[in-house]
């Protein structure tokens, strides 16, 4: 049982002339909670679909829990929220979760699933009358119904509100803590940062950075410090500690920094007024500019 949960070995996937996944190498160990981070079109969903046996690689080998993906799925070892997955219309929430419990060989109790997916009050609701966020939660309930060894979640929090998102990730982290391997795809850096032990940044169908959230953010170029110029000189801003770049748009100034705290301290000492001061993390566009070029 020492096999990795997920192993991509030089995996390539072409759609006609388009190469969606390009010699991807990635190993996820059992019990890890890994985010696959990348913009749309980076190859995340293709990689997830290869893992689920929904696609066949053009080249290389995909292994899930030591066997072929389709075998792991057929054995009930995998639970998934695939991209573009849907629900059976005309049935109730509890009816559908019960169906999933019937399909998997070792299901979790219905009540626990409804609680974990925050659906307890919606058991009798018709599936076609759920909101977007509720639909996502029901898809999550189906994914965990069989108590899978590997959870594959492709953009799982789409359409969820803030509270749903928080509850959702708390539950996912709970599953990871109990030993379930979780691999999720997202294009939100913050979501990967807050919830994953390890972030794999994917661009152009290959892994460009692989590390802890802190390592990934550091390699993504740190933070941005923004403020409004209330008079005074602009000169010298580029010499503040940590600053790697200065951008001026009208009266708004943005400093890119590798060490936001030191930069802000120095900035406040150097200037009398710094109205509208804000510090933000590097966003994904920044990360990709930094990581892929």
């Amino acid at each position, binding site marked *: 049982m020492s096999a990795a949960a997920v192993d991509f070995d030089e995996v390539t996937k072409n759609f006609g002339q388009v190469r969606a996944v390009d010699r991807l190498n990635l190993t996820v160990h059992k019990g890890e909670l890994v985010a696959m981070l990348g913009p749309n079109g980076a190859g995340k969903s293709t990689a997830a679909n290869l893992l689920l046996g929904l696609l066949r690689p053009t080249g290389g080998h995909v292994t899930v829990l030591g066997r072929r993906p389709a075998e792991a799925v057929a054995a009930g070892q995998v639970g998934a929220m695939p991209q573009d997955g849907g629900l059976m219309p*005309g049935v109730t929430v509890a009816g559908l979760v019960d169906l999933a419990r019937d399909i998997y060989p070792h299901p979790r109790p219905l009540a626990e699933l409804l609680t974990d997916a925050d659906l307890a009050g919606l058991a009798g609701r018709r599936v076609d009358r759920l909101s977007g966020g509720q639909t996502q939660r029901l898809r999550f309930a189906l994914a965990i119904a069989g108590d899978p060894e590997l959870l594959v979640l492709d953009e799982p929090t789409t359409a969820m509100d803030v509270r749903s998102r928080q509850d959702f990730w708390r539950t996912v982290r709970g599953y990871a803590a109990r030993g379930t391997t979780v691999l999720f795809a997202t294009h939100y850096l913050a979501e990967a940062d807050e919830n994953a032990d390890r972030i794999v940044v994917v661009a152009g169908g290959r892994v460009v950075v692989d590390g802890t959230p802190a390592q990934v953010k550091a390699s993504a170029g740190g933070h941005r410090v923004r403020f409004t110029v209330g008079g005074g000189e602009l000169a010298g801003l580029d010499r503040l500690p940590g600053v790697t770049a200065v951008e001026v748009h009208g009266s708004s100034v943005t400093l890119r920094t590798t060490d936001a705290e030191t930069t802000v301290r120095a900035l406040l000492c150097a200037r009398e007024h710094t109205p509208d001061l804000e510090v933000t993390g590097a966003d994904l566009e920044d990360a990709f500019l930094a990581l892929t070029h």
Partner: protein
Amino acid sequence: MLSLLRLEIRRMLVDTRFLILMLALPIAMYLLFTNIFGNTPPVNGLSEDVREMIAMAAFGAIGAALMATAPRIAVERTNGWLRQLRTMPISARTVITAKVLSAMVWGLPAIVLVDLTAVLDHGVRLPAWQWPAIGGLLWVGTAPFAALGTLLGYLTDGDTAFGVMFGIYLALAALGGLWMPVSILPKVLQHIAAVLPSNRFAELGWRIASGGSPSLLGATILVGWLAAFAALAGLLYRRSNALR
């Protein structure tokens, strides 16, 4: 498999379109047609009340079989439910089998309700053995239509499935002699009717009710349609589930 079949059967109960068109419409049409043509003299030893009863039972059973397959499969292919199922330990074959079985199960009330209306409203009486014979043959005979519905489910998408299915359904009924006797159709249409599954399907019941037994030709034609629809549906099913 059983819980999927149970869900497939149960969900039809909340489908108003299905309940109205496939269960209530044949009953309404039976009452309408028999009250218009009710006094027509018997043809081939078959009174109009009985002929219409079997025609409308067949009409309802065909509708139920098509409705439980074509739009379901098309919508679920489009909305991603079949995709979700492919990530779960259940084979695509089981999923489609459950739909075909659900179609067959719903054919039964469609038949029974029309028969019941005929007995209660028109006092239709048949020798006791003929009821299970007619009901059973009509029920088994829905298989080609369940196969046709499955085929349509792969040919159409969620938006077009119902319209295409309903058009074919009405054409099968009208040309197959379910609404009016084939003998009053133009000669060309009579030839077409003779090879249509809908006509041969109702013929199973008409033959029994007039004291005969199913024709070998009729049964052969039905089995032929079943084989053709099932083969085509199987082809599209395999293409749809093939790994790219």
